[in-house]
């Protein structure tokens, strides 16, 4: 009997995973707000980005509930996300070369978006190409951070560095979603349930990492 109940509860959790994922943004907003004064500049950018994400989640959720198409907001959010991640990497890199790469990526991403808008938008309303390009660029930026760590000894306890947590979080999230966005068009046409479930799990994980980053990044 209890096994049936447990399976039912598990099923509910599974069904409501996207709701949990949307609400999980509250945790980093709260923790970030508590420690805001003691955060570094890069982490303050992260807080602003997380707060904007929270607002977007709220508005898109309301629009979805009222059956209004929220794709425009969804696409706008991509640009904010990429801009925030690029800015955080830009201010965290020691190397001028990698700072330059961030600049090149920003320009390339905008150029790619324009091309995508004018030539491919008609058959790809989800803008999977942009999402895919964004994922690839963020993964390369993560690699830039890791390369600097592999070149010279900087931190004895890397796990206490907020930037390491952030980079690891983004690498896992974007690596996980890269595969999803590669086939997003086909998946959305077939059955989007699993698509959103996997995305929700990765999103919850990323929000937990944001919380850890804020906690690790506070100056005591």
């Amino acid at each position, binding site marked *: 009997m209890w096994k049936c109940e447990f399976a039912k509860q598990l099923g509910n959790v599974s069904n409501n995973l996207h709701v949990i994922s949307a609400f999980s943004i509250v945790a980093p907003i709260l923790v970030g707000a508590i420690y805001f004064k003691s955060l570094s500049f890069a982490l303050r950018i992260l807080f602003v980005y997380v707060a904007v994400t929270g607002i977007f989640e709220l508005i898109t959720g309301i629009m979805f509930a009222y059956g209004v198409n929220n794709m425009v907001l969804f696409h706008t959010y991509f640009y904010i996300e990429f801009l925030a991640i690029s800015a955080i990497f830009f201010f965290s890199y020691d190397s001028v070369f990698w700072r330059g790469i961030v600049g090149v990526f920003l320009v390339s991403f905008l150029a790619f978006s324009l091309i995508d808008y004018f030539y491919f938008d008609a058959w790809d309303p989800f803008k999977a190409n942009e999402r895919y390009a964004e994922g690839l660029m963020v993964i390369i930026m993560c690699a830039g951070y*890791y390369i600097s*760590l*592999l070149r*010279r*000894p*900087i*931190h*004895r*306890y*890397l*796990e206490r560095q907020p930037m*390491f947590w952030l980079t*690891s979080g983004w*690498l*896992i999230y974007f*690596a*996980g*979603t*890269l*595969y*999803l966005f590669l*086939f997003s068009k*086909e*998946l959305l046409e*077939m*059955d989007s349930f*699993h*698509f959103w479930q*996997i995305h929700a799990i*990765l999103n919850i994980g990323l929000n937990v990492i944001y919380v850890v980053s804020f906690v690790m990044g506070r100056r005591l």
Partner: protein
Amino acid sequence: MNELLIIGSALMVFIALAIVVFVLVYQRRMYEKHHKLIELELADQKRLIEAEIRATEREQKRIAQDLHDDTGASLTSLRFHIAQLQDSPQKRAMTKTLSETTYKVRNVCNELLPYTLEELGLADSLSYMVSRLNDTVEIDVNFILISDDNSVILEQNEELAMYRIVQEFLSNIVKYAEASYIDVLLTMKDRTMYLEIVDDGNGVIAMPKNHPGSFGLQNIVSRLRYINGSMVRTQRKQRGTTVEIRKSL
């Protein structure tokens, strides 16, 4: 398609996790290796400093002994010969000059090899050093023993290093700081020796690198490193410097 989706995403996440763990472990190992190298370099440096200090002390000891045995003996012989002369103003002048010379030679001997350190210990030797300095300079130099914990016993070479550090500081202050007073405070408690040198001068801390006094400061730093001591120098806004030296057992 769903299985493919889950497997594909899981595989990507797994690869990302593996990269994260690899970077974490690699950085830790690299840091530890680098840290060991630094430790080895520091140990080498310490050995060099130790050898240099020992050689200097040995040479100073040899000069002090030569001065004491040869010059001291000559001065004693001279005193004996002068004593045999008939009383005259010349004899009195010679006796006075001889006394002054003997005093100066004894001072130089004591500076080169502080005999008092072995016999009296650090606190009394510092007190003696300060009293002799008071006789020769117009600065008000005071030695204050705040608390003397018997459990704080330094090794002979450590006591000598502390003595030399104070000697160097006092010499620098007298020569360059234009101070009107110097206080040397010694506290021995909780298995730690705290030594404080306070003056109202213009601050030896501001001495330029190529200044002759900066060599003395280097010497102080080397000796502190040699005995694993630490030093904090604070310069007051108006005038004066406080140097705090700490040596834990």
